[in-house]
């Protein structure tokens, strides 16, 4: 009548543990110390920045590979869909009698335990189930536009807003619409005073 959702091999699993990056902090120290000893010319500063940038990049890149299998299973499993048509993330598919999610989870667990890299696992899944198995577009080829377009929109939009504000700022004089002329002379004083009086707190 129903099926047990967890893979038979795993009786208990915990998800959502934070990733610990051991060694990353200690790696920063010698590099930083060496550079502080040098005279900070502009060139050095630039190189230092580049090094730091590379280091940060490396740390992020290693984060996936260095993590334990359980959290990798959790991570990758949340980047894939169950293909049964329920439109749910693989690890969140709980619909009873699902014909696919069990097998997929087992495959994923096997791959992770084998130590396959993230991209290898993903490729294998795409080969087997087609590109819709990935929960989000990849960052290659045309798929990249999915990510680029919103940010291009943000930049263009922000540019447009700034242009509009500048255009409004540079409007010659605050013209009153509908042919209303600014008040002049005695009238101006009289009406300004009236407005002040009628709006004071």
């Amino acid at each position, binding site marked *: *009548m129903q*099926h047990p*959702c967890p893979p038979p091999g795993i*009786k208990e699993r915990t998800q959502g543990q934070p990733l610990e990056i051991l060694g990353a902090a200690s790696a920063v120290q010698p590099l930083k110390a060496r550079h502080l000893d040098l005279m900070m010319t502009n060139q050095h500063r630039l190189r230092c920045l580049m090094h730091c940038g590379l280091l940060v990049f490396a740390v992020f890149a290693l984060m996936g590979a260095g993590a334990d299998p359980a959290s990798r299973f959790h991570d990758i499993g949340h980047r894939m869909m169950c293909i049964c048509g329920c439109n749910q993330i693989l690890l969140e598919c709980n619909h*009873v009698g699902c014909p696919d999610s069990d097998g997929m989870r087992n495959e994923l667990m096997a791959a992770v335990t084998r130590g396959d890299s993230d991209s290898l696992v993903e490729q294998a899944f795409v080969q087997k189930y087609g590109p*819709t198995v990935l929960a989000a577009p990849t960052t290659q080829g045309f798929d990249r536009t999915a990510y680029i377009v919103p940010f291009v929109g943000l930049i263009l939009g922000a540019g447009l807003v700034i242009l509009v504000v500048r255009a409004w700022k540079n409007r010659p004089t*605050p013209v009153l619409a509908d042919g209303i002329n600014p008040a002049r002379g005695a009238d101006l004083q009289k009406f300004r005073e009236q407005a002040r009086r009628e709006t004071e707190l």
Partner: protein
Amino acid sequence: MSDIGSYSLLLALALSVYAFVAGFISLLFQNPVAALAGGRERAASDPSFSGLLRQNSERIGETARRAGIMVFAAVFVAAAALVIAAFSNDFSIAYIFHHSNRDLPAAYKFATLWSGQEGSLVFWALLLSGYGFVLRLRYKTDPRLFAYAGVVLAAVQVFFLALINFAANPFGLLQGPMRPDGTGLNPLLQYPEMVIHPPMLYLGYVGFTVPFAFALGALIMKYPGEKWIHITRRWTMVTWGFLTIGIFLGAHWAYSVLGWGGYWGWDPVENASLMPWLVGTAFLHSVMMQEKRGMLKVWNMWLVFAAFWLAILGTFLTRSGIISSVHAFAQSSIGDWFAYFLAITFAVFVYFFLKNKNHLHSEHKLESLMSRESSFLFNNLLFVLLCFTVLWGTWFPKISELVQGNKVTVGAPFYNRVAIPVALLLLILTAIGPLLAWRKTSFESLKRNFLWPTIGAVAVMVFLMITPAAWGSPFGLRPWLDISYFYSLMAIGLSVLVALTVASEFYRGGRVISEKTGQGMFASMVQLTHRNTRRYGGYIVHFGVVVVIIGLAGAAFNQDKEKEMAYGDKMEIGPYTLVCRSYTDEEFPNYAAEWAVLDVYKNGRQIDTLTPERRFYKASQQTSTMPFIRSTLNEDLYVVYEGLNQDTGHPILKAHLNPLVMWIWLGVWIIIGGTALALVPNAPAPMRMPSARTVESRANAAPVPTAGD
């Protein structure tokens, strides 16, 4: 029943066609000089047919208005007929057969009206004519503007009623032999919230027709001034409020019923409801620019149109099956109807926009980039961009199919990556915007207003970072460990910033009144709010939004665990220990249920007993889960009964620990409260008389800027 229903639907269509045609003629032949002295007499002396129409244009218009009112009566009768058919188990009507059964509880029988394609269209038409009914009754506010809005509304009604009559008739009879019982309501929908979620959402969707009708009406008639937007404002707020409630009820339903431990899955149908909401929110902000400064007239026109259009597009997406979704509405040919309707409304709007756009010229000058005006511009940019991102993500699978020949999935990971940064920017703006003065703000003033809230927010962020993780989430937040923690920390920090700026607004305003009147601080703040309900109601909405966002930020710390549990087995998750006491099953008229009984321990003490459940609905032959959720302000313990392992006969249970979820529902209540407050009319501005005698009475009622923000 089916006779009465079918007939009233036809009558409603005929009446709405009349309301449209007669209203149109009345406006077409309205004598432009009639408004001037002597114009009516001159028109009366014209003997031709058009002269006759001209003489009577106002009377024709009045019949159109009344026909519009009667549309409501007719649609109401049709909807009532459908509900009565559901209650009387009239399974000769195909719709009732497919969406109800004898043992269905009464509330769900009522919900039959909107649980299927045809019925929900009738319900949509009912709400639309309900809005039209109220609008046409309130015509005295501005008869000419309301006449134009009424014609636009009638046109939309014609579409929906034609659709119902000719493509999706809910009163169609069941073919073949008479059946003793129906196939029942989808079990996922048999949940109390499902009885109110669709009506709220529909009220929100349908409601955007009203601002659109006013906007298009004002555009066509070249409405002088900005009063129309003032009239529309309240309608928009009501609509927005309903849509907000509808969206969050949907999220809460998904959380309580679907059993995957989450509340938002970025499904196309969810996205469809989010898009008009985002644009509507943008409009609620930018409308102030037009009211106060006469700016953004063109932009606002387009925003109103976009909100309406996206609401219809959402319906199109869910009904046409063009984009696959879990919300499995029957897919049918009515998708084409919506596609044509979308195209026609777009064409009509663009035509009138191009024709009359010169009327929407704005004249004001801006002094500085640092001003309330430009903060509104950025606010609008971000809201529209978010909407575009959601639209883009929803359509990307189609685009990908066209370009590279294969579909891709655009799920939660995509939106988390793209939408969260934009949402955080928006949160920054929510904090800064209200502190900026109109026209220009000097750096000094920004510093003065911003210093303390910033210090407070930074202090909270530092506190969250240095506390030990053992305190439970969100304490011990280490943003360098994971991008989601970083987002979470930023979201909480910025939320605190917004909350503090809101508090400072109330405090500063309250202080002015308190100084004037000598009242206590709290009484002064109440008075302050009453004097300008929109602004301070709006601040309360902002506060509710940040409470929601803190709740959303909790998702970064979600944990879950799955275990097969025999009698006495234990499962530990976070601070909780679950012990399986027993598991059993039972029969009910409408469904059969299996469930487990779990004791919950925390710090060695039993604190609760949970009964997660799984049901098998007999009529529809479908199963559904009933997760047990133990909600506290800190975290939700969410336990799902997944089923029995057939090899061992033991139940499999999945437990989720979802921190801060309750804040979301709490925040929504605050948002609703704020919106309701913003709808309350302002307390009248006190009389300002410069004579010495009134000084004392003036002191007792310190004036605050009324209306507007």
